[in-house]
């Protein structure tokens, strides 16, 4: 059994206190209440699991997928792998299975050609077979028990669901209305409900026109009803894959990663996104829980709750004036600024309001709340200035501490930096920092560099480092130290046109948010005076406002008119409220409240809409989902490398890039062989798919990660693994972001974040890169889809060195190796050519040409490996033609550039599809392919190159794109294959 399998989760099921998940051919069992992993077992061997059906006595579980089925028993008293007992080797049917049903000791199976097969379970023999007349391919189907027999619901490709009694030639009903393939059917006869979902993005609820007085499990009932489509529901932006009918809801899940909860009248009650934009393949429910399995390899438990369960809302009435601004305080009360010069304090518990007259001269008012949410500062443009504090104990009151007039000219902005400093910006970029200590005093003065709208949008202070970090309206981030008027560092245009929305400083890290959909991270070291931009995280909504909790896990913002709360750790939205948008006055905070001797985390949201102050409380326990298995890439992984850090041997790190345009660094806790916990540590975005990545170790405990892909993008990051107590933290710095000229819009956009040194067509894809390190210089060889080989160097700056147009077609692979004390580059193309290039003195090369070419095949070379021994080269290539080729190359009289083919070996007998991974390890050769097999050979050169087949394994990962070696021991070799997911397997070396 593989050591770790992460791929599409295609079946989930609640069973008593357990959650079952089908991951590839394995059943994984979790505890429903604690969420902890219990065990996993290989059950369907070589076949994905698509369904679990529990027998009536709840003793047996039928597991099926593809053409196979078997039965397992859960033995509660046993632990670990013994907990699941497989009753028999999987039975292979002659057709694909769509639905199964227990009928005593017999099971009924529905196949994709609309045939019902009945099997005797104890003897595993086919008892009878009942074909239907409508026998074109079904994409979904459902068997429903009848007291007489079995009812068949067949979901066809032609948008029709056909209902017939098993064995009958004439269908009872044809449900027409969908406009595409039917992907799922569920039925609750007791509720008189059928729900179908389709390619056409709709969910349809069907019911009998009139409900007959007949038991719904009788054939009579089905013969005497007229089924009509009651509701045609739209909530998904893509194909709707599955649905289930719970006690009170219809739940649908789709390719758009969305879970919709509808009531039986078709009202959409809740819509939330999970699984990181991957397709959701499976859903099940139990009481108040939902479980989903997705294309991101994740399994998630969700509270099955709707607005009425998790939200309390009220409208606050103020007697005087119209509310203009609102804030939430530490004690969860509301501060309101009205249009009649009053500052009001509304106490939630007593529902009392107190008002304070402000005596403002100007209607341009500024209001700010300190980080501790206890201090409220309010000022008008002309300098009338008040500070209020909320009492921390006893009766909540707001006390006026300061009531004065400042003479700072026209004040344009005012922000608290922390709890003690107020940063005011007046005309001409005059910034004054007032410190509050029973009284206010001028603490520091700064000058904001000239810009169009010269005021601030956010501020933060780090007293230890003695720096102020101020964000201005033009999007810049300025770092100041007390005593110097001008910024000691300015990061230009970090957050677009509206300026940073929030700044937080914590342990040498500055985190900023903005209305450009991003969070940006900076590293500050005031001792060495080093201020560096590190990296960014792009969120799914354009307006990112601020963190809601101290752990920086929940972050809020807006997506058009919708208020969004996002969970950073799980990369998913927690809450969406259509409140009207961020331009109105609003505030939100996360806090803990006590309800019936229970502490509960809540989100408090206040906003003004149509002059009403809406106050809402959201109970997070009924909103937050919980990962049983954390998801990762939602589409194919194209490239992956494994890294082990010397500081911690309980973990390995996976650096991977994929079709979902992300580059991820994930950690795998490998302490428990059978329960490797895998999670993404950091996720970076590319503009397009990430096709290739290489690692260059740095000293100590670091890596340069060089990645490339679509839109001609190459990125370089510096990644540090920092040991912090027991944990290793991954810290990364973006060194080169991209170098394509990009689209017109990007070209005009701000240049400061990009290295626009190279100019080639953005439609070009970087197919593969390899890297060599020469002293401090890094040389990067990029094979591109426009047939050009491009060479770059990197040493603080990224430069183009040269390029070669020698190849006439797309370059698929670039591969560097050392040979006779020289660096050699091998390039391979879609036409099967492998060219060898000598890397020396690259700077003076104008017309770089390869010194040796091998034509391996007519079609593309999809994998390449070399091994140098005794001054010879062993070249292994795998191709689109299913073949593995070995070339044994010898230099003529030891002359490096006069290579000749000494002997060759080839075979296409071992894989039936494109060979996407090849490795030479010692005297072993490993290959892998889209056909989901991993083959081990042993090579020798006794009489010319020869290769002997040793063993082959099946992998659960579809669309394998390559593999990497994790570990080689004396008797086995551990590799990770990747594609649609990833899998780690250990292959015995001496098998035969």
């Amino acid at each position, binding site marked *: 059994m593989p050591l770790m399998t992460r791929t599409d989760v295609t079946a989930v099921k609640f069973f008593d206190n357990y959650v079952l998940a089908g991951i590839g051919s394995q059943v994984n069992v979790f505890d429903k209440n604690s969420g902890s992993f219990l065990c996993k077992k290989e059950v369907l061997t070589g076949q994905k699991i698509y369904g679990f059906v529990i027998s009536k006595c709840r003793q047996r579980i039928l597991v099926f997928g593809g053409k196979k089925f078997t039965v397992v028993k859960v033995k509660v008293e046993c632990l670990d792998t013994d907990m699941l007992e497989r009753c028999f080797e999987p039975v292979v049917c002659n057709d694909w299975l769509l639905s199964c049903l227990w009928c005593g000791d017999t099971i009924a199976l529905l196949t994709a050609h609309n045939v019902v097969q009945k099997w005797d379970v104890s003897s595993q023999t086919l008892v009878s077979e009942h074909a239907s007349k409508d026998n074109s391919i079904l994409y979904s189907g459902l068997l429903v028990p009848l007291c007489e027999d079995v009812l068949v619901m067949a979901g066809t490709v032609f948008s029709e669901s056909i209902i017939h009694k098993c064995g009958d030639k004439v269908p009872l009903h044809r449900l027409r209305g969908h406009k595409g393939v039917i992907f799922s059917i569920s039925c609750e006869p007791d509720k008189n409900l059928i729900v179908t979902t389709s390619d056409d993005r709709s969910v349809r609820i069907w019911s009998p026109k009139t409900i007959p007085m007949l038991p719904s499990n009788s054939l009579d009932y089905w013969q005497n009803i007229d089924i009509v489509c009651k509701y045609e529901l*739209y909530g998904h932006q893509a194909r709707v894959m599955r649905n289930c009918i719970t006690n009170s809801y219809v739940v649908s899940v789709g390719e758009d990663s969305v879970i919709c909860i509808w009531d039986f009248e078709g009202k959409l009650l809740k819509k939330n996104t999970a699984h990181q934009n991957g397709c959701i393949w499976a859903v099940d429910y139990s009481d108040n829980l939902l479980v989903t399995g997705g294309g991101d390899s994740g399994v998630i438990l969700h509270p099955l709750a709707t607005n009425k369960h998790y939200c309390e809302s009220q409208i606050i009435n103020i007697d005087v004036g119209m509310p203009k601004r609102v804030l939430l305080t530490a004690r969860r009360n509301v501060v309101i600024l009205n249009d009649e010069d009053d500052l009001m304090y509304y106490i939630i518990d007593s529902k009392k309001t107190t008002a304070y007259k402000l005596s403002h001269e100007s209607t341009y008012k500024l209001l700010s709340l300190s980080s501790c949410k206890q201090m409220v500062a309010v000022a008008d443009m002309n300098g009338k200035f008040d500070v209020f504090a909320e009492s921390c104990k006893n009766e909540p009151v707001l006390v006026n501490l300061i009531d004065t007039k400042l003479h700072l000219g026209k004040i344009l902005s005012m922000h608290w930096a922390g709890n003690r400093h107020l940063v005011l910006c007046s005309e001409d970029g005059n910034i004054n920092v007032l410190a509050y200590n029973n009284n206010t005093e001028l603490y520091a003065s700064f000058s904001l560099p000239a810009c169009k709208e010269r005021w601030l949008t956010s501020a933060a202070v780090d007293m230890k480092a003695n720096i102020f970090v101020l964000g201005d309206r033009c999007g810049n981030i300025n770092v100041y130290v007390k005593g110097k008027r001008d910024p000691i560092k300015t990061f230009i245009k970090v957050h677009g046109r509206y300026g940073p929305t929030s700044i937080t400083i914590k342990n040498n890290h500055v985190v900023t948010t903005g209305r450009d959909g991003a969070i940006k991270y900076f590293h500050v070291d005031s001792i060495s005076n080093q201020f560096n931009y590190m990296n960014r995280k792009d969120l799914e909504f354009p307006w990112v406002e601020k963190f809601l909790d101290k752990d920086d896990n929940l972050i809020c913002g807006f997506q058009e008119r919708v208020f969004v709360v996002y969970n950073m750790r799980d990369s998913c939205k927690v809450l969406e409220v259509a409140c009207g948008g961020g331009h109105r006055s609003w505030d939100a905070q996360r806090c803990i409240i006590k309800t019936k001797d229970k502490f509960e985390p809540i989100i408090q949201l206040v906003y003004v809409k149509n002059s009403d102050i809406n106050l809402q409380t959201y109970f997070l326990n009924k909103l937050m989902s919980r990962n049983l298995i954390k998801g990762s890439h939602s589409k194919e992984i194209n490239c992956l490398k494994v890294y082990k850090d010397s500081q911690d041997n309980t973990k390995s790190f996976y650096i991977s890039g994929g079709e979902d345009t992300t580059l991820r660094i994930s950690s795998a806790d490998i302490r428990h062989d059978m329960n490797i916990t895998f999670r993404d540590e950091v996720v970076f975005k590319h503009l397009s798919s990430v096709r290739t990545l290489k690692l260059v170790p740095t000293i100590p405990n670091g890596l340069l990660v060089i990645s490339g892909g679509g839109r001609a993008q190459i990125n370089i990051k510096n990644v540090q693994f920092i040991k912090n107590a027991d944990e290793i933290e991954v810290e990364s710095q973006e060194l080169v972001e991209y170098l394509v000229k990009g689209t017109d819009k990007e070209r005009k956009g701000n240049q400061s974040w990009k290295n626009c040194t190279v100019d080639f067509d953005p439609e*070009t894809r970087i197919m593969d890169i390899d890297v060599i390190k020469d002293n401090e210089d890094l040389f990067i060889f990029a094979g591109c889809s426009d047939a050009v080989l491009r060479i770059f160097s990197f040493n603080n700056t990224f430069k183009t060195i040269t390029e070669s147009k020698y190849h006439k077609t*797309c370059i698929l692979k670039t591969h560097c190796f050392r040979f006779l004390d020289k660096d050699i580059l091998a390039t391979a193309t*879609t036409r099967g050519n492998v060219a060898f290039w000598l890397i020396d003195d690259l700077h003076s090369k104008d017309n770089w040409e390869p010194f040796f070419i091998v034509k391996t095949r007519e079609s593309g070379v999809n994998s390449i490996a070399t091994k140098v021994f005794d001054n010879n080269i062993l070249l292994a290539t795998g191709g689109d033609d*299913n073949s593995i080729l070995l070339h044994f190359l010898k230099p003529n009289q030891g002359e490096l550039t006069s290579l000749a083919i000494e002997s060759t070996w080839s075979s296409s007998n071992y894989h039936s599809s494109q060979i996407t991974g090849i490795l030479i390890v010692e005297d072993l050769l490993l290959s892998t392919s889209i*056909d989901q097999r991993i083959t081990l050979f042993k090579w020798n050169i006794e009489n010319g190159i020869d290769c002997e087949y040793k063993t082959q394994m099946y992998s659960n990962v579809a669309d394998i794109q390559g593999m990497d070696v994790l570990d080689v021991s004396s008797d086995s070799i551990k590799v990770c294959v990747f594609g649609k997911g990833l899998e780690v397997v250990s292959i015995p070396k001496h098998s035969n």
Partner: protein
Amino acid sequence: MGKTSKDKRDIYYRLAKEEGWRARSAFKLLQINEEHNIFEGVLRAVDLCAAPGSWSQVLTKSLRQNAANVDDVKIVAVDLQAMAALPGVKQIQGDITKVSTANEIIQEFKGLKADLVVCDGAPDVTGLHDIDEYVQSQLLLAALNITTHVLKVGGVFVAKIFRGKDVSLLYSQLKQFFEYVTVTKPKSSRNSSIEAFVVCQNYSPPSGYIPNMVNPLLDHKYCDFNQFTGPNRFIVPFNACGDLSAYDSDTSYPLILEGQTMYEYKEPVQEPINPPYKDIIDKTKKLQIKNS
């Protein structure tokens, strides 16, 4: 993204427009023929899963060159989708997995047999490779089933195949009906795609084989004919087709190609038929949940 970016990304998309083909697939059939001479002497052909019709265009053009009299050429095109008319091509709208469709095709030939059956059918992929491979193999088997009714002994069958984890089972099945089975990948088919074509030559059904459309042909299982892992027993030769000078679909070419002096953007020959759920996209857009 600009209008020309698809032209830049996909040379064959662009060439199809320039040469008047309804789809870039045309080049796949042309390139298969270059390598395998599948049109040699062919007068009657069936084009299964034909919409929007570029293979039918290629067939019309090529078969007419074989005929002394244009009327001897017979092409029947079948697809689920409606397809714009093509002179000389008899169209049938239907599902190739249905008996009724097969009967219609058989009737069209009035007792005569076809020299060539081609099938470029592809299902709407779900994203789960094993399901997609299964559905694709069922299309291929349906096409094979029709073929057993209409193809003359010695005839040729060409079909799209997904080279997935169980493809060797299909090979073993095809080998029961044809003397030569080759897998071929046209240069116009992307290196990264799992799509390839089987070229099956010299139709020679097992003796005593009676074509039967009522029961679908089911695919083989492991253990019957092939092992699940280990060396393949059914080895089917692979070749890449399309001549050496052919463009390569993975390569990004400049808009002004070698030997050309100018580039002009061309509209697609046959605008895609609107997706059936076009109106649905609009409905979904307007949707919002009310929270209280």
